């Protein structure tokens, strides 16, 4: 028997995660994402490779990022998939926000043709069956799936699937080190046949997060202490909450009275969800929740656009990240010319955005367009907070689970090759990193029920001595009969042969010693 894996997306690349695994005759689709770098047919996985969209037993979505869920409405509403869709409660809550937000940007800003409509999203989300962490779902008679906590973002899960004796785990994106608002990935010891893991940071080993936190806090504190303003351009979900918890805690401990603002919109809506979904956050949040909801930030004040130019220090979280436009750009224009101010950029910035320009060397002026030129005198602080696990974390997880096979997805090819090398040499586990649209066959062990004859069992109990637990018998497999293990005598009886004993005698010369 074997598990057959069709990599529809995220094979040797980051984007449009989608893996269809056939395990014990059941087809499961893990994630159904879109590629953010493309706007043509390449944005979606090639669903035509599936013989029929309805021979899939179920679709499981690990988390709400668009590269994991973006193609779902297309698959269900356009391709006509009708089966069950599973995702965790927070994912179900936050996914429509993300999908609709992206659809709007696509249609309103870039003027592109939409692949699915708002109604499609709503209709698709109505079909979703929410699941909880460690909840086991019997999809049908044979197939069961279970979600494990994955960290990464609110509601992210790793999905375990089992049909009979065949077991596999699809990790989605995960994080092995906890941050302030999310815990580390958590999993049981499962004897897996196959592990499909992400490998975004296949070769990076990240240092302690404390160092990054310390530098960030120091930069922000020094800036506001000197009366400057701090701009943190972030996306609405995840990093904003993480950094705000960090700042809010620090403000509290150090008795700082500088206001922290959130630019309105998605962030405030997201904060509301975070407040409700406390059960999916880190232990620290759960502990302090009994006293106070940590997402009710103490030092965050209501914000209005007119406050941008008020005198005095403040910290502002503004969307979108990377200063790619919108409100964060507007604020950047106002604040960049003062050397008192600070722009703290968390995470990765796509080339071409202002964020990228700021990170790749300190420019003194930025030409926005022909008429607008911004003098950049402010300080710039770069933060590398990433919700993905590093290579040490991947190795740790693989070692802990010790599966028989590993497939790497969601990473860059050369780095994946390096990681494959390590997994095979250090852990002795077979590893592959197929490209998109490739199929991998992973052999699985099959267990067979055999019966034992009474004589054999009796022999076992009498012959067993001390720690030695070895019993001798003969396995008989006949066509049309169940496999059976019998004792030597019985076997001789069945085949009607006699026992012959051949004995050898040897002499050992004392000189040989």
């Amino acid at each position: 028997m074997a598990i057959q894996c069709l990599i529809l997306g995220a094979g040797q690349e980051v984007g449009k995660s989608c893996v269809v695994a056939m395990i014990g005759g059941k087809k499961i689709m893990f994630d159904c994402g879109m590629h953010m770098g493309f706007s043509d047919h390449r944005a979606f996985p090639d669903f035509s490779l599936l013989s029929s969209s309805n021979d899939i037993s179920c679709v499981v979505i690990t988390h709400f990022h668009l590269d994991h869920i973006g193609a779902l409405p297309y698959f269900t509403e356009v391709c006509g998939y009708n089966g069950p869709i599973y995702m965790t409660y927070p994912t179900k809550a936050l996914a429509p926000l993300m999908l609709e937000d992206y659809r709007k940007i696509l249609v309103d800003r870039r003027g592109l043709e939409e692949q699915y409509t708002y109604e499609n999203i709503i209709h698709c989300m109505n079909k979703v069956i929410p699941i909880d962490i460690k909840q086991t779902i019997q999809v049908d008679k044979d197939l069961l799936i279970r979600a494990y906590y994955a960290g990464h973002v609110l509601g992210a899960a790793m999905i375990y699937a089992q049909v009979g004796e065949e077991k596999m785990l699809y990790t989605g994106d995960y994080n092995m080190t906890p941050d302030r608002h999310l815990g580390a990935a958590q999993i049981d010891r499962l004897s897996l046949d196959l592990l499909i893991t992400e490998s975004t940071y296949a070769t990076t080993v990240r240092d302690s997060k404390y160092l990054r936190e310390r530098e960030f806090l120091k930069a922000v504190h020094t800036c506001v202490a000197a009366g400057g303003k701090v701009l943190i351009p972030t996306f609405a979900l995840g990093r904003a909450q993480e950094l705000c918890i960090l700042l809010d805690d620090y403000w509290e401990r150090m008795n700082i009275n500088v206001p922290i603002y959130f630019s309105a919109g998605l962030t405030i809506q997201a904060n509301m969800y975070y407040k409700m979904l406390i059960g999916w956050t880190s232990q620290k949040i759960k502990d302090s929740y009994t006293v106070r909801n940590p997402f009710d930030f103490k030092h965050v004040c209501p914000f209005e656009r007119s406050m941008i130019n008020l005198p005095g220090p403040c910290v502002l979280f503004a969307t979108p990240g990377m200063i790619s436009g919108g409100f964060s750009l507007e604020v950047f224009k106002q604040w960049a010319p003062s050397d008192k101010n600070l722009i703290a950029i968390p995470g990765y910035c796509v080339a071409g955005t202002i964020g990228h320009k700021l990170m790749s060397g300190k420019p003194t002026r930025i030409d926005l367009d022909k008429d607008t030129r911004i003098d950049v005198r402010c300080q710039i602080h770069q933060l590398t907070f990433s919700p993905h696990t590093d290579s040490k974390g991947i190795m740790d997880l693989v070692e802990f689970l010790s599966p028989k096979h590993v497939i790497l997805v969601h990473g860059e090819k050369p780095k994946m090759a390096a990681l494959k090398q390590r997994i095979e040499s250090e852990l002795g586990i077979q590893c592959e990193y197929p490209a998109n649209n490739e199929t991998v066959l992973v052999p699985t062990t099959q267990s067979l029920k055999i019966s034992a004859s009474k004589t054999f069992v009796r022999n076992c109990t009498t012959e067993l001595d001390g720690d030695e637990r070895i019993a001798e018998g003969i396995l008989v497999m006949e066509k049309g009969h169940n496999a059976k293990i019998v004792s030597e005598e019985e076997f001789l009886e069945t085949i009607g042969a006699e026992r012959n004993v051949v004995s050898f005698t040897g002499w050992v010369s004392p000189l040989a010693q």
Partner: protein
Amino acid sequence: MSKYRDASYQLRLLCTVPPSRSLLTCSASPLSSLMEEEGSLVQPLTTTCNPNPLFQFDLTSLSSAQALLLNPSTSIDTIHSTVDSLLLSLPHLSTNATSLSLALSVLAQSAPRHPSLSQSIVSSVRSLINGQDRTSSAVLSALLSIATSCHNEDGSSILTSILDEDLVLSLASSGVYKIRSRILRLLVFVVGRWKCSGKFLTDEVMVRVFLRFTGDIYPILRRDAIDGLCEFLTVARDGVDFCVPECCLERAIGLIGDDDEFVRVAAVRMVGLCGEMLGEKENGVDKIGQMDTIFTQICSMARDMSVKVRIEAFNALGKVKLVSDAVLMQSLSKKILGSKNGGKSIIKLDKASKPCAAGAYIHGIEDEFYVVRKSACRSLGIHAVMSIKFADDSINYLMDLMNDDSESVRLEALDSLFRMTAQGCLNVQEKHMHMFLGLLTDMSSLVRHGARKILQLMKLPKLEIFKSTVNELIANLEKYPEEEEGIFFSLFSLGKNHREFSLNVAKDLAKQIKRTSKGDLTFAKPSMAATLVVCIASPLSENENVPDTPVVLFSYAVPLLGRISRALQGTFDQHFLLTFLLDHSNIKWKSQDLMPEIASKGISEDLMQSVIKFISKSVGDAWSLIKGSNGNDAEKFLRSCMKELEIISLNASQAAITTLDFFSKYIQILQLISKIQCKFDSRNSTTFHIKSHHILLEKLDSALRKIRYSFTGWTKEVECHILELSLLVDVFTFSLARIPSNEHLKNLLSKISHLEAISCLSDFTKEIKRLIEERSSVMVNLHSLLKVFECSGLEFVREMKPIKAELKVVGDDSENPLTFVPGLPAGIRLWITLHNTSSTDRLWLHMSVRGRRPQYVFLDLSNFEGSEEVRKCSSLIPFYKTPKIASFEIRVCIVIECLSEHYEVLKERDGPKYDVTELSVEKLVYFSSVKSR
């Protein structure tokens, strides 16, 4: 009880009959009738008419026996008989395992209640131990519960008496889980008391049995076996052979990858323990290599998914000593360190156990659970003290932990840092200081304290860091002035440890002082005091830097003597400090100027007398200010007098306190007089409020009443003076009223005649008398009257006793109020203590609910016990007018009637006829209605 006795008698009868017959007798014996009679009480045996007779307990009879044994009022005889009959019937029950195990559990339950029976129970169950599987497991569990209930040594000696090697081995290799689990638990129990009892197994056999159990298929047995081995190792610590911990270690390492969480926890603990023991023992093996292996093995568990395992892993890491630097450094780095750092041992380890030590501590301090972080932090601190190289690296992480969200982790990190500082292996760098100094303004006082403790020992590398540290400490002081002592001490230690830097700061300060003009108040700030402490630290402690330290600093430090010396308590005597500062300052002084008593002890009696004299003199001076219409000056003067009195009374004796109390009350009166005086002066101006005068006068009047009735044992002079003061009040009142009433006049005259009676007529009194006789207006002559008023007699204030009362409400506080039925009287139980009341005094209990008329209850002194000095009484006082609300509070206090004051007709219908003044502090009594409960 008689019933029990009967039952016991019957049972004994039963026991004397041979068992085979007894059942026959049972059915027809009087016992059965007794059983019927007693119902559920005693029905131990029912019988079946069987050719092969058997004892058969049914559940009812067993539960009756159990009830008898557990009932605390069962007589000893009955218990003995019950137990005997149970024991006698045990052998006959061996075929019926259910009844037998029930009977055994009843016996086991009774053993802890009746220790004397344990031995007999144990010896009679011994024979059953080799029986059927169920029987022996029941016997073993009974034995276990008996043994655990015994006092320390008895338990294991009981077991020793019946167990032997063959038996233990045969039970331990049983195929039945229950038997194995129970014998294992028995062994774990015994091994904990190994030393204090005789041994039925040799150490070797014991270890072998445990080791074998570690391979059991049941995880719980594996865990128990490991616990047993740990117990064995800790108990036998030095006595065991070297190979035992090695053997245990090998097995434990095999088990740390177990599927069961609890087995892993136990295994990790054992690895740590073995590592600790092997580290202590001398043997020929390459110890560092061995320790490295153990350390690496435990490190591999730092990434376990179970929180418990991770906690245990970091605890265990702290136990393994003598680890090579290379492995330690690897545990701080997630990246695999190259051979240039690692040296040989890493390469060797790579082969053996993969680079699993990598970044173990990083993972630990980044863990999601604060307990794990705390444990990691602790063990990090332990290793940091032992290896300088490791300390240099780990300080980065410990400093980073200062930013942790959990306070207990921050405290643990501070503790580790402190130990490192104390061992001299803390090498601070500039980059750490921002985070570390931030702790000085942390929310938690424990964290601030911890940070200061470290600063006291820290060696700072640069002057800038030193200065910023001092500034942060000053910021701490400004934010939390209540921590002044601790902050000053830290500053002192800091100055002492950094002689050059503090000299630098001293010179800066001296320059600053020179620049500013005299009388500049910037130097009154706490930051000034703090900086001075830094500056004088090193000259003071080592007598160095003295010539270099600017003299002016010492003279500036003199006024801060009290604050500095309080911070340096235990290090320097205040007297020494003062002498030192004066010696080096430019203040001219003689050593006899100092009053050593003040410096060392409290205030002596003689000194107290002189202090009191001084105060009475000052109060006299205040009078002259009042008379000279220097209202504001007088008030300032009196206020400072008040403050000083407060300070002095902190150290005063009981007798002196009374006098000081008198003076403070007296000063209050003077303050009021001074105020009134001011008002009268401004009377001619347009802002004249007659109402405020009346309020002030009322206050003055009640203050005077208070002083008159709060003390007894007046000298004649003082009494005259107080009377004259009240005359003065009358004069004020008199002059205020446009047309003085006859009553006022009468009042005045009566007081004058009283003064005449005790024959002390001062000029003031005479003058008033003259004026009244002449019928001239007192008002016109107010000034001249005041001029003749003399403040005399205060020097005679001594040996007064306070009249006071203490009230205690029994069984009431705001959390648990007394109950009442609205509209009905409620009782309040009070403890009353009266001091120095005479039998002629009329005391009342004053009870009032806000917004209502008060209720007075007369206190009959004859109901009190004790002498005039102290009277005590406890009584239930009714409060009649309970309001019709859910809850309310009453203010209760004891008042004294001022009999010599003017009489007011029917002031209260059932209350005092004269004015009253309070003797006790007001107490609140809380009530809540019965319904609202």
